[in-house]
């Protein structure tokens, strides 16, 4: 198969930090260097983009010397952890921004679906928005007219098609938006995380439509998602990005497997104060570090067995020693991004509060872990009790693995068989 996308030595540098008076002198310096035909002095010192490490300059390479080719008719999954460069790659491919160095060559029309509903105007009716959104995505008016009924039918909002979209429920909004995009006739389609929205039935419909587009119609798809199940189902090939570099490129089944196994966060102790992308929040209260221990053992670990008791240690720092009314919670997710639990301190009749030393160490114990073997992520959240202010939020900051049945069972537990290992009481009553 001939290539339809060819990416050669592609790099993209971003300036991080704030733009203000301070950056002007540097801009002038760069401009002066360019005028004299010299290389940009600030692009040279950029380092590999590892968001967890403090860098030396405020230029960061979101992508660095990327090379790959995509063949006609392939459905390619782009995977990697947050900040690996996935969105940057898609932004360049969809022509939203230009590369810093290198080039991309494309064959045929390219359409991107970086966020559904782009350009929807709340005051306009569904009908008017179908036309407007279609045109923004590159369709001609006649083309939209021809497909109008099909689009409305797919979206399932026929009854509201002449109502302003500001009256729509968010589900209807997304349905309509995806319906327009799904009917684009471009040779290459770029899709970013659209499936995070809509109900289960509609998500299934979207996946089905995308499968149809790539397999049935022979178009090329690039699909970014954290949802490994969707990637597995939809994409025959995948590209794994890590810190702005292509870590792996090949068949999906192998790459997804390796990605999940290699698990880029392999440390059982995570120092949260050193990360430069410090998460969301105003840091009135902040997380210093987090680590996991198995009950009865003194060293930290990230490997557990079914039925183990897990201790989560979190170290909090308070700016104000009188800080009260803090709500702290721990979110538990599967590797596919499915949220399993949100454990809030007050639900356990506990209240996190500041101490005179400004820092405090908490231990949260999960007794009798009943999760199926696999990788799980924890996110830490800290805010005020009314949920209006976020102090600190660290998404997926630490992961752990359930490796086997432990003391509960020795039989094989495939991931696809479930999420919870439950042992209900069985009794013969008649």
């Amino acid at each position, binding site marked *: 198969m*001939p290539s339809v996308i060819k990416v050669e030595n592609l790099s993209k540098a*971003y300036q991080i930090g704030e733009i203000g008076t301070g950056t002007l002198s540097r801009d002038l310096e760069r401009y002066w260097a360019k005028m004299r035909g010299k290389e940009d002095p600030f692009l040279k010192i950029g380092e590999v983009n590892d968001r967890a490490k403090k860098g030396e300059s405020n230029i960061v390479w979101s992508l660095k010397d990327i090379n790959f080719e995509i063949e006609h008719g392939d459905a390619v999954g782009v995977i990697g952890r947050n900040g690996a460069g996935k969105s940057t790659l898609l932004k360049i491919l969809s022509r*939203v921004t230009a*590369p810093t160095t290198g080039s991309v*060559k494309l064959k045929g029309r390219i359409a991107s679906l970086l966020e559904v509903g782009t350009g929807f105007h709340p005051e306009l009716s569904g009908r008017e928005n179908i036309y407007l959104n279609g045109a923004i995505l*590159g*369709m*001609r008016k006649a083309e939209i007219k021809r497909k109008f009924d099909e689009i409305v039918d797919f979206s399932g909002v026929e009854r509201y098609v002449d109502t302003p979209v500001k009256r729509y429920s968010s589900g209807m909004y997304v349905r309509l938006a995806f319906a327009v995009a799904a009917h684009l006739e471009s040779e290459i389609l770029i899709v970013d995380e659209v499936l995070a929205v809509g109900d289960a039935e509609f998500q299934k419909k979207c996946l089905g439509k995308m499968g149809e587009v790539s397999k049935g119609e022979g178009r090329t798809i690039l699909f970014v998602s954290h949802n490994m199940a969707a990637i597995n189902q939809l994409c025959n090939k995948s590209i794994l990005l890590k810190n702005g570099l292509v870590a792996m490129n090949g068949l999906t089944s192998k790459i997804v497997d390796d990605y999940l196994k290699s698990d880029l966060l392999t440390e059982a102790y995570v120092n949260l104060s050193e990360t430069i992308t410090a998460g969301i929040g105003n840091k009135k209260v902040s997380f210093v570090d987090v680590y996991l221990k198995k009950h009865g053992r003194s060293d930290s670990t990230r490997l557990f067995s079914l039925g183990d008791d897990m201790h989560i240690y979190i170290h909090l720092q308070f700016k104000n020693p009188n800080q009260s009314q803090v709500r702290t919670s721990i979110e538990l997710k599967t590797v596919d991004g499915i949220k399993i639990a949100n454990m809030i301190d007050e639900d356990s009749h506990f209240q996190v509060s500041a101490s005179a030393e400004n820092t405090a160490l908490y231990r949260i114990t999960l007794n009798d872990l009943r999760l199926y073997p696999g990788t799980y992520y924890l996110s830490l959240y800290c805010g005020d009790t009314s949920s209006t202010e976020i102090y600190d939020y660290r998404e997926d900051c630490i992961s752990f693995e359930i490796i086997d049945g432990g003391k509960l069972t020795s039989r094989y537990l495939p991931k696809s068989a479930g999420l919870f290992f439950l042992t209900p009481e069985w009794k013969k009553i008649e």
Partner: protein
Amino acid sequence: MSMPTDEKWDIELTPHSSLFDLKLDDIWHYRDLLMLLVRRDFVSFYKQTILGPLWFFIQPLFTTVIYTFVFGNLADISADHLPKPLFYLAGITAWNYFADCLTKTSTVFTANAGLFGKVYFPRLIVPLSIVVSNLIRFGVQMVLFFLMIGFYVFKGANVHPNAYLLLFPFLLMLMAMLGLGLGMIISAMTTKYRDLSFLITFGIQLMMYLTTVIYPLSTVKEKYPKYQWMVEYNPMTPIIESFRYGFLGQGTFTMLSLGITTAITILILLIGIVIFNRVERTFIDTV
């Protein structure tokens, strides 16, 4: 769907593009989008209002009344022997078109960052749609202007529309190009540093006082010959003066001054397009 076979690439994305690559074929492909954006602007303007498109009339009408009172009567500034309301309305209608094009275009990048950050289409479409949708507004306001001319002609006032009316389409184009060009320059310069956007709102106000909107050029020439150049070299002045001359029969302009304005306008538009093209490729990283 045909299968691509040869090594011919349709699109090549590189760090830099040539200065004058306007991607006109791309813009042509997206012409429906231009019309839909115009429609969107127009429809969303009067959604949930009672008076609807009537608001297009109300603004110039009230401004004319105020100007007639303040500048015409209180300050007693000459109106070039024309009926005062007509004199001001002519200036306001023309000036508003230019000013609206300029202000709206100057915020293209910042106001549409959300859209531009998600999907590609030729960015030039948006400023073009602004110029066109303001044209509709301008057209509606011209109706008001014509009604007023009719009224004064009927009353037998000193109003003489003449053959220079034929310059009107050309003047309109000049105003659009000038507003578009200046707006694009400003929009491109405000993506990284916002300082200039603070300047623009009162800058346009100031520029209006340097243009012959509330006074005729003849008065400046007569009373302040020393400062005459400030008003005369303002590219908007010959446009408004010839606009007034064509429709009302009073105004001071020469073919030379109009020619200079044309040259300046084309130059500004070219600079605007070049800067806009340079910035549109990566502005989303710094906006």
